């Protein structure tokens, strides 16, 4: 029995890792720019395909996978910064429906671009077996899953430290809390918005490169990813980054143990959790007014 629970826990933590990396980007961008980045999942998908493309060249070299982990988020971040400068910033402060239109267009454009370059079949980065198998107390699971959990936990701590302890983090929190006051105090809001968007897309890029060995890069993964990210943001609320991480773990646990307890209602569990939180605490579990 403990092996079964252990396996579900590993599975929950892996889900939580991806959920956090995806949600953190949405959380940061919405917090600073009040902009709903619906195309966040598209950066996730594009990064997955980029990981595949770079993997064809680098994967057989020593440390090849880690080259992907370093390069893809960087490229995604740069693409995000460029896009923010050229397109996104024109829609800050616009009504939500106006913000949504260019994002929907972007989703289709990135999807068609991926289809044009990489075709309709999924692409994989075959490293799942390279990290061996880990056995802890009778619970055996792929070593790669430990890598995903470890990288994600590391990023959570670093991001938490940056947001809470550094000057840049203070600026982010200041703009998120009161953008007018922050601007009056001389915060370069425009530059900060670009930086935050770049960090957000880089996190989506990291999630993209880490997910490809598990589920592959495929058309359509953008939409499901953005839904998952929004669920975490809605359930967690716009509070602290560590709150977003805790919410991701909660959603991951709900998915994994929900399947174990009542498999026929597995689909509904997470959305039931979201509905419950919205009813009891509309600003989210860790949200602030």
């Amino acid at each position: 029995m403990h092996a079964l629970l252990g396996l579900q826990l590993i599975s929950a933590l892996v889900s939580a890792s991806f959920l956090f990396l995806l949600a953190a980007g949405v959380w940061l961008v919405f917090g600073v720019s009040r902009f709903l980045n619906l195309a966040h999942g598209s950066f996730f998908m594009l990064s997955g395909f980029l990981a595949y493309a770079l993997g064809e060249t680098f994967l057989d070299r020593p440390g090849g996978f880690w080259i992907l982990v370093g390069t893809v988020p960087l490229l995604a971040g740069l693409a995000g910064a460029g896009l923010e400068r050229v397109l996104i910033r024109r829609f800050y402060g616009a009504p939500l429906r106006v913000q949504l239109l260019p994002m929907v267009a972007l989703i289709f454009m990135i999807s068609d671009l991926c289809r044009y370059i990489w075709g309709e079949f999924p692409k994989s980065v075959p490293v799942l077996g390279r990290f061996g198998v880990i056995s802890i107390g009778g619970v055996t699971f792929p070593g790669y899953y430990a890598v995903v959990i470890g990288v994600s936990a590391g990023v959570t701590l670093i991001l938490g430290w940056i947001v809470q302890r550094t000057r840049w983090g203070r600026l982010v929190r200041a703009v998120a809390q009161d953008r007018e006051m922050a601007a009056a105090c001389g915060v370069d809001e425009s530059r900060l918005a670009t930086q935050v968007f770049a960090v957000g897309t880089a996190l989506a890029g990291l999630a993209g490169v880490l997910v490809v060995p598990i589920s592959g890069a495929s058309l359509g993964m953008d939409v499901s990813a953005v839904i998952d990210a929004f669920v975490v943001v809605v359930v967690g609320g716009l509070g602290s980054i560590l709150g977003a991480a805790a919410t991701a773990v909660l959603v991951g646990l709900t998915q994994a143990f929900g399947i174990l307890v009542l498999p026929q209602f597995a689909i509904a569990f997470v959305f039931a959790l979201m509905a419950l939180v919205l009813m009891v605490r509309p600003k989210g579990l860790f949200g602030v007014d």
Partner: protein
Amino acid sequence: MRRMLGWEAVCVLLAVLGLLTVPLLGTRSAVAQLREPILVGEIVSASGAFAVHHHGQHGAALAVEEINAKGGVLGRPLQLITRDDKSSGEEGVKAFRELAGMGVVAIVGHSFGATVLASSPLARDLRIPYLVNMGYTAEITEKDGHPYIFRTFTNERVFTRAFAEMIAKLPARRYCTIAVDFVYGRSGTAQILGGLRALRKDVEVLPGCQYWAPVGQLDFTPYITAILGQKPDALLFAGMVALPGEAFVKQAKAFRLFEQIQGLHPTLAMPGNSGGLRREDIPEGILTGSDLPYPPPRPELRAFVEAYRRRWNHLPTEAAAHAYASVYLLKAGLEKAKRVDREALAKALVGMTYLHPSHGWVRLRPFDNQSTAGWWFGRLTWDPTYGRAGLADPWYVEGEKYLLGEEQIKRLRALGR
């Protein structure tokens, strides 16, 4: 007098020239008509969720090129007019209407089951032969069948029934199942389990071990770990097809699931279901099947695969093979009808025998226009020759044995009405 003769001569000359020119013009027009292409409509899911079926377009185009290079059909070349249904039933219906209005003699379709079912009543009402190259849903030729719809490959009844019969011989008794929660995910699983239970009373699905993954989900880790925890003898994952199927296999391999539990999936070796898997992703030993197995076990299939690869620089999927067979069937039908006429073609196709690259010589049953094509079974392996997932030691089962009989089809259609 001389002047008169001059005028008369000119008039006679003009009249003679006129008389000569009119039939000549007529002849030219007849020649033009003879060489005028025979229009064939083509509906393909070239974009959207089921865009993998667009390989059917390449299969059909290859057959048309081969036929035209050998003089065409009834002295006229074939010409495909293609429309994209965008993986939507509604768009498929629009495309069907548009093609019908353009005077095509027949329509070939490489779409998914729901699009075919949406367009099928139009084929009946407009009396256009509709040759279906994708969509394994049984209803297409059973409950919803009619004289103008023809399926040139097998239907789900064949491979689910044959598979149930096959796995009933395994010692496995305790089962888990997992499927994507969509129509075929549910129906395919139910049909195999139903067939299995009819043959083996001792088989049970473990309590709480029947999983339905949401459409769009590609991380199946929580399901895999839950299945491992239940320790069944066998896992039936027939409803995990296309992208989810590939993702599931890769993740399950990482957990060594198929080293502990017998994997069962009647269609996993189909190129559309496992074309994206690499050597590293493939667990050996899953009992599975395909209607385009790699490496090709038949000479006709090998020839088709090579011709297709030469033309398109990639390997064909099952949709391509079905479409290729369909266009050749269409040619044979037109030659039998001896004229380019929808009604005559529909009548000529009834009961025809034709060569399918994967299945050899098969026929369309006269009472439901369903092909007698069967299914290849074997164990999943890596095919080093073509560099993709393949079948080890494949064997073939005939389709006829597993299809519904004439009386059953009549009853189903009567109930449908």
